[in-house]
């Protein structure tokens, strides 16, 4: 085994585990498609195809005490955090033994006590303020944890994204936010959603730096995320990561994604994260054909067993619909203090309630203009506004600059 130098070295077992999780995500995905075609999936089916390295590589950088909140294409992250394929099968098949007992679908589930996973909702961006709160509570309790969540390219345009990131930055919350740029928000390309070449630049408005990483290179994703996690844990505030990747299917199973240029799929297919990682493992002598076959056999066996378990689970009993709206006597989340609580009670908590203002904020003579005009994607012909003298002038100005 001859590995390239890594800031955060990975053992052979870890390298193979990364492969296992990516392969498990992929095969789970394909099994779900078969179930969908057999009409066993209730509702929509959302694929992680092509994004396995981003989900697995980021989640793998967390410690068990850390918290995460996945989005729809982060099934790999849920597997890394300890969920099993049967959980995903049962969520999609609306079975009683699913993590939500059939009350919600897809990756909408979580676990406060053991795995530290917060369930997403369908409204994008809302996890960012929530995970900011998780990060702040962790710091308040003295826990030294990091909170991580993901957002798609499309989700960076929501108000919750901006409110959450701004608050996290002001509070210097230990938050790692992974912008999973898979090029498409349903049918709309990223250039029609965001006037920036790199989505990590969203963070500049909040004084945040960040990383851009090849989201289809699991080792690179892991290395960058480990560094981001360490920085957040060390009190440097929120860290952004933009992972450039590609959604290799439609928004959901019903969507053939005919709006994606075929050559774009071809381009990214040649950069498939699992094929690339297989080649990497071979090139660096991490595995041989027997090891590879053993992992693939393990994945196939586990999926067979877990699917059988999932299919044996009944649908939820109808009366469950009426239960659990309120928590009555069920609350068992005790704060886990890792600092003396006396610090937070009078008299030790008492402060002078005054702001310290050092910069009085007057004009300091520095004029500011953006360095470059953001690139604007041309409107499609059918949607073009009527050309007026003003738009003709603007178009002329753009041409002159280029």
């Amino acid at each position, binding site marked *: 085994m001859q590995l390239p130098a890594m800031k955060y070295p990975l053992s052979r077992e870890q390298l193979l585990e990364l492969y296992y999780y990516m392969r498990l995500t992929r095969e789970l995905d394909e099994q779900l498609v078969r179930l969908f075609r057999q009409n066993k999936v209730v509702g929509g089916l959302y694929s992680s195809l092509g994004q396995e390295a981003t989900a697995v590589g980021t989640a793998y950088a967390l410690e068990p005490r850390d918290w995460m909140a996945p989005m729809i294409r982060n099934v790999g992250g849920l597997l890394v955090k300890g969920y099993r394929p049967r959980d995903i099968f049962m969520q999609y098949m609306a079975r009683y033994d699913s*993590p*939500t007992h059939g*009350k*919600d679908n897809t990756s*909408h*589930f*979580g676990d*406060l006590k053991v795995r530290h996973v*917060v*369930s997403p*909702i*369908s*409204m994008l961006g*809302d996890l*960012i*303020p*929530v*995970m*900011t*709160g*998780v*990060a*702040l*509570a*962790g710091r*308040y*309790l003295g*826990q030294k944890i990091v*909170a991580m969540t993901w957002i798609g390219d499309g989700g960076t345009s929501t*108000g*919750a994204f901006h*409110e*959450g990131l*701004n*608050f996290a930055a*002001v*509070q210097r919350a230990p938050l790692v936010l992974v912008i999973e740029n898979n090029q498409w928000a349903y049918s709309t390309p990223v250039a029609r959603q965001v006037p920036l070449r790199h989505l990590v630049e969203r963070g500049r408005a909040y004084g945040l730096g960040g990383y851009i990483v090849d989201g289809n290179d699991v080792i690179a994703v892991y290395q960058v995320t480990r560094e981001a996690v360490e920085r957040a844990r060390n009190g440097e505030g929120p860290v952004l990561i933009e992972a450039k990747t590609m959604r290799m299917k439609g928004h959901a199973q019903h969507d053939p994604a005919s709006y994606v240029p075929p050559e774009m799929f071809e381009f990214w297919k040649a950069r498939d994260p699992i094929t690339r990682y297989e080649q990497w493992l071979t090139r660096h002598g991490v595995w041989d054909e027997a090891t590879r076959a053993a992992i693939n056999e393990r994945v196939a066996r586990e999926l067979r067993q877990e699917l059988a378990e999932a299919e044996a689970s009944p649908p939820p009993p109808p009366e469950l619909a009426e239960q*659990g*709206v*309120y*928590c*009555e*006597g*069920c*609350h068992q*989340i*005790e*704060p*886990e203090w890792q600092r003396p*609580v006396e610090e*937070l*009670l*009078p008299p030790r*908590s*008492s*402060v*002078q*309630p*005054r*702001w310290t203002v050092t910069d009085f904020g007057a004009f300091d003579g520095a004029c500011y203009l953006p360095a470059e005009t953001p690139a604007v994607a041309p409107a499609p012909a059918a949607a073009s506004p009527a050309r007026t003298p003003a738009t003709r002038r603007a178009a002329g100005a753009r041409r002159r600059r280029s």
Partner: protein
Amino acid sequence: MAEVTMLEAIRQALAEEMERDPSVVLLGEDIGVYGGAFKATEGLLERFGWERVIDTPISETAIIGAAVGMSYLGLRPVAELQFIDFIACCFNQLVNFVAKSHYRWGAPVPIVVRGPSGGGVHGGPFHSQNPEMWFVHTPGLKVVCPSTAYDAKGLLKAAIRDNNPVLFFEHKFLYRRVKEELPPGDYTVPLGQAAIRRPGRDLTIVSYAATVYTALEAAGELAREGIEAEVIDLRTLLPLDRQTILDSVRRTNKLLVVHEDTRTGGLAGEIAAIVTEEAFEDLDGPIRRVTALDTPVPFAPSLEERFLPQVADVVRVARELARY
């Protein structure tokens, strides 16, 4: 013992709960150094420090979202919305994230969202609203609307200790207008229990928050005409104390609901449906309502007075109902 205002009662509840339980933290706009737009949190930063009294950016979605995340690690955050009208800015967090969390995946959200609601102070369309019914229609939330200083303190303490998300609507007209002596020491008022403010045999008037006083004043006038109205203060709208309403209607056989919220889709309609379903045979007259108009809350005093339910309206409708 000195009388305290509803505002002071709220401040006492927050301070005592923070003293009792270090997992109680406050967050909101201008609540720390400034002590809150209405001074409900005055002095709390000084006592409890920057980590427990957090001045936030103007980001209602971030405030509620962060409170939810904190509650997942066992904290009990109390979020202030500077005026409750701004609850519309964090509507999605409340109805989609907060309200459904326990039902969907068993994660309780023990947060309190409190703030000043209601009109009568010439606040105009964006500083006077009563948005309670948006949330009474949302399973998973609890909605509290106190009308006295005693209740405000006891209900707020109960809300902080409750394991569910509680929206706590403080009527700003009452903040400094109602006063009473409070008992020494710790007490709570249970959520979901109405109070009979005035007993009577001829008809039942159900109300909550500021219009409880409208109803009581009307009941005083009616008594001079020999009509004895029973006045019920709901205190909590969700869960609703159906039993107290039904028991009263079974005694008086007539029901009038008074609220400051607008008419269509207001709580009066729901109460009318419950009573019709459960106690139709006990009714000796139509269920009547006196509510605000179906308009935004107007600004000018002459317009706002027309908008709000007045004592004379309650007296007139109650008189009609008593004669029916």
